């Protein structure tokens, strides 16, 4: 398939999925709150807030989200190609476009901040996967800043950008850079821990990690089988499996380190700040998981490419 045909199909698929939503959907959930926040300059999400001053009606807001998602699909294809997925990169992009766990970020108008932040991180990663020149380094820093100023969650760029460079260029200095990024991100998150909007509801850190691990395990499994999606899952009912969930996340992290799985590492890095920063009574949600979906589609692309390679070398059974 020619690249131009692919992109026409991607655009058509996006409009088929979101066309009705763009035309008819209203603002829901916390949309009015974020629009109001956008009318006051300042705050941490400067760029996202600024964007609400420019685009504040339902139809343009939903259209903008679809456009941002398509832009992120382009960046995912670019990243997959630079990571060596070649022809499978287009399949990876299509998976990202259609994956159910991306729908909340796109269909929910306030998901705009998440989409902008993800765009900044992805652009920085695409640049990191290419040759490092003074110009591209400036580009990486600018893209990361763009992400962070859209939403704080883009702080994961501190680890993901050098991790991508380490995966592509295979040089130890990038691994050290990623380790430094990890220290910087954790320090930043600890400094930032006062984020809560309901101080009386703040859990102790151990309880928080358990509940957030529970949400993470649920969303990680939904990457494969996306069932029972909802805007507000009742994690309190199943609080007693929080400890096994935290252990599961720990085991997955050990697996990622031993197997040096880039894609699994990507997903864990996206989750990590959420284990540190408390957002009381609001556990990890689907729109906050948007960037983690990139790790999953890259994992699927890698597995499919390896399978095709094995079949080409040894033949099918």
């Amino acid at each position, binding site marked *: 398939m020619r690249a131009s045909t692919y992109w026409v199909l991607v655009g058509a698929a996006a409009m088929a999925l979101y066309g009705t939503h763009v035309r*008819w959907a209203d603002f829901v959930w916390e949309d009015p709150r974020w629009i109001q926040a956008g009318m006051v300059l300042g705050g941490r999400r400067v760029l996202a807030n600024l964007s609400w001053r420019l685009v504040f009606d339902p139809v343009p807001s939903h259209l903008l989200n679809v456009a941002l998602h398509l832009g992120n699909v382009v960046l995912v294809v670019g990243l997959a190609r630079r990571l060596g997925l070649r022809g499978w990169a287009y399949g990876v992009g299509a998976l990202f476009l259609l994956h159910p766990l991306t729908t909340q970020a796109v269909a929910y108008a306030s998901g705009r901040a998440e989409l902008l932040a993800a765009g900044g991180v992805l652009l920085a990663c695409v640049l990191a996967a290419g040759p490092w020149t003074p110009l591209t380094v400036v580009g990486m820093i600018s893209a990361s800043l763009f992400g962070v100023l859209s939403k704080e969650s883009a702080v994961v760029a501190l680890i993901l950008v050098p991790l991508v460079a380490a995966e592509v260029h295979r040089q130890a200095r990038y691994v050290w850079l990623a380790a430094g990024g990890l220290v910087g991100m954790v320090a930043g998150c600890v400094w930032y821990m006062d984020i809560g909007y309901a101080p009386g509801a703040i859990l102790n850190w151990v309880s928080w990690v358990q509940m957030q691990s529970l949400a993470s395990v649920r969303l990680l499994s939904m990457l494969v089988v996306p069932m029972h999606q909802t805007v507000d899952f*009742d994690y309190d009912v199943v609080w007693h499996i929080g400890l096994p969930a935290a252990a599961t996340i720990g085991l997955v992290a050990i697996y990622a380190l031993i197997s040096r799985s880039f894609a699994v590492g990507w997903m864990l890095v996206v989750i990590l700040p959420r284990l540190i920063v408390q957002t009381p*009574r609001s556990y990890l949600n689907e729109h906050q998981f948007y960037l983690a979906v990139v790790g999953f589609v890259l994992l699927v692309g890698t597995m499919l490419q390896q399978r095709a390679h094995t079949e080409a070398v040894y033949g099918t059974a």
Partner: protein
Amino acid sequence: MILGVLLAGYGVVSHTRIRVWETPLTLWQHAAEVAPCKPRVLLNYATALRDDDLIEEAAVVIETARRCAELAWVLEADRQDALTRITEFKGLNLFGQNP
């Protein structure tokens, strides 16, 4: 083949999921189906019903929310928030339950 199956399956699920996000009522109605005894979800559902002038249905949901808020596993902060909001609902005398 595998990729095709994944794309088709995910596309269908996504299509269904996106429709839920059309209005506050569709969003919270679906959320209440997935989490039928979460006070915050039920209160948001009741608000959406009230905003669409479905007052009787909202009153039923509010009563369910009140019962669910008393369950043991509900966080104390959630319980207090739910009870406060229920009181606000009744204070507005929307359901005809106050003198």
